[in-house]
């Protein structure tokens, strides 16, 4: 019976990590539903971008208040995880504060965790106020209604509770150390929880141990639960921000990709020796679909983008179309892509690994034509994203589908395009008059 807690802990740990691995596998399967894209170039620059943008948070601080608080929560998250390592070892081995022999270094570590935990609590409260009391514009857009709003708050509640449990655990521990309880050897510094400890003064040792153990267990179980909440939440960005910034666009923002399948066809059309009536060779694959009408037509980096989006709405708040009341919201483009991808993933799960057409698609069922045509391709959304997401590339792929597969451009654009075809300018002027401006 002595080893029961160790066994229970190990089971919880294995289950928590096991579920997480299962989710990661599903995530990776869904992302791989996207088309292949070559992102093997310039690895040094990619590592640099990841270090700067994800690790260094350079784009977060473009907005100083949110940026600074985000850095506190981020640093808190990373550093306090060192403490989780000790908790896991204690749990498995049945020890208590196994790193205590580090002495003054240990005191410094625990002390700084406490300060960080307190700062995280403050930041989380401010974040909550911004979302729920001040109601910052970008948090109350139509696409944020329902689950996205709850999700945002849920993350803040969980973080608050985890930090609170951590400090409670330390406070009880500190009090037990003062009382000279067995196993609770004097170790650690408690700059924050020393102020909570006086609340525990009149509690018996056995009850205090109960409080300390409960906080300890709830804290670690909470962390394991949070880990498994990620897959269902916008909070996935804490992991995916790293690969996403690595695979982010390196070319100048204005450089859009040239569709290779089109290049081949145009070259054939312009080749005077090509026989226009030749029957296609037998092994010719089906002609490729131009542009994207569903998530499988996008490339896997675009799908990774969708899972990485944490719905902060900086893109939408910088979007000129959105600022002037149009329906387009780049954040919604990313959220729709993720929602549809999840739907496709569930379809595959339910049908033994094969996607069975469900009569739905990203274009039309999630993203409307009106949204797509409101884009000015100005790249403000791309510039604003703190984790290198490119909503514009998805908008472009869907426009390509509308125009090249469905001829569904707005009439004025069709006129413009036939002018280019007929006289080499978007307006109906004679090509021979191109130089008239010199003499006017």
């Amino acid at each position, binding site marked *: 019976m002595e080893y029961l807690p160790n066994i229970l802990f190990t089971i919880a740990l294995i289950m928590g990590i096991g579920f997480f691995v299962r989710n990661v596998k599903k995530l990776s399967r869904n992302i791989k539903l996207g088309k292949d894209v070559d992102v093997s170039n310039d690895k040094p620059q990619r590592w640099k971008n990841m270090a700067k943008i994800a690790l260094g948070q350079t784009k977060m601080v473009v907005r100083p208040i949110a940026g600074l608080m985000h850095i506190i929560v981020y640093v808190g998250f990373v550093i306090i995880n060192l403490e989780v390592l000790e908790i896991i070892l204690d749990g498995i081995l049945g020890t208590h504060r196994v790193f205590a022999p580090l002495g003054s270094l240990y005191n410094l570590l625990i002390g700084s965790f406490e300060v960080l935990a307190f700062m995280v609590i403050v930041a989380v409260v401010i974040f909550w106020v911004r979302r729920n009391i001040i109601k910052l514009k970008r948090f109350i857009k139509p696409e944020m209604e329902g689950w996205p709003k709850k999700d945002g708050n849920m993350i803040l509640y969980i973080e608050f509770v985890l930090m609170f449990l951590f400090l409670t655990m330390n406070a009880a521990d500190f009090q037990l150390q003062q009382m000279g309880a067995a196993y609770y050897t004097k170790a650690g510094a408690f700059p924050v929880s020393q102020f909570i400890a006086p609340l525990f003064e009149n509690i018996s040792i056995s009850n205090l141990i109960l409080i300390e153990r409960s906080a300890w267990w709830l804290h670690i179980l909470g962390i394991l639960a949070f880990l498994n909440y990620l897959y269902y939440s916008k909070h996935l960005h804490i992991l995916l921000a790293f690969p996403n910034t690595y695979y982010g666009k390196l070319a100048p923002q204005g450089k859009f990709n040239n569709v290779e399948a089109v290049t081949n066809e*145009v070259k054939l059309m312009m080749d005077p020796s090509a026989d226009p009536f030749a029957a296609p060779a037998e092994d010719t694959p089906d002609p490729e679909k131009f542009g994207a009408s569903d998530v499988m037509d996008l490339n896997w980096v675009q799908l990774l983008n969708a899972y990485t989006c944490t719905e902060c709405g900086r893109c939408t708040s910088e979007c000129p179309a959105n600022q002037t009341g149009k329906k387009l919201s780049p954040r919604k483009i990313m959220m729709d892509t993720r929602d549809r991808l999840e739907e496709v993933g569930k379809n595959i799960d339910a049908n033994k690994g094969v996607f069975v057409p469900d009569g739905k698609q990203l274009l039309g069922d999630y993203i409307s034509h009106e949204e797509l045509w409101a884009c*000015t391709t100005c790249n403000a959304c791309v510039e604003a994203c703190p984790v290198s997401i490119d909503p514009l590339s998805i908008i472009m792929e869907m*426009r*390509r589908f509308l125009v090249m597969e469905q001829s569904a451009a707005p009439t004025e654009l069709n006129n413009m395009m036939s002018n280019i075809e007929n006289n080499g300018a978007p307006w109906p002027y004679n090509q021979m008059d191109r130089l008239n401006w010199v003499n006017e």
Partner: protein
Amino acid sequence: MSEEIKVKTMEEFIAQGKQPEILFWVGSAGSYDDRAKKISRAFVKILNSAGVEFAVLGSEESCTGDVAKRAGNEFLFQMQAMMNIEVLNGYEIKRIVTCDPHSFNTLKNEYLGLGGNYDVIHHTQYIKELIDNGRLSIEGKVYKEKRITFHDPCYLGRANSVFDAPRDVLKKTNADIVEMKRHKKTALCCGAGGAQMFKEPEKGDMDINVLRTKDALETNPNIIATGCPYCNTMMTDGIKAHEKEDSVTVLDVAELIANSI
């Protein structure tokens, strides 16, 4: 007709057995749009004044296809691109300058993968080069007491990180250069990009150009400077919407410099 300007076509250069220093890509707006034609003329005035041996393609130039590409018509874009590349490569063009950031972006970035490899620069960069090399001297009297604010064209600024050249050049007018709250990387679009120039905007509560002009008017300028024919149209319309056309004018950097020589 305003002052005489000297423009030679590539065909004329070849007939004389010569190569120009640089090709001036006029673009469809610069060739046909009444307002943009003035910008083309102003830029040529600068080139003439600096004694630059430049050529244009004239009737051999065709739309870059940029606007078709942003509208989603990759076919039309690549057709245009390959035709233009054939002409440019036929003349062994190495260096291109243009007053249109959209042509600039497309020629520089998107022709590359289709067989067109050129050193492409925006006219503000070229004007700066001419000044730095001592080929162009500017008197800088006309705008001395004026306030000028520069609107960054998306495809010059954010899309290609050209922020300093237009500002450096503008300083030569000796005007007071003031920045809008949103400028450089965070500049707001004028509303014309992505083929919006050629269609009515979607339903909303305001037009983008009116919002952007508001940004500009907040700096209390006499002149809004741009470096793009489409931005020029949008900002000019925006000024009218704010009923400020009597006190504020919209001018291209090339026009401001041409008037300051």
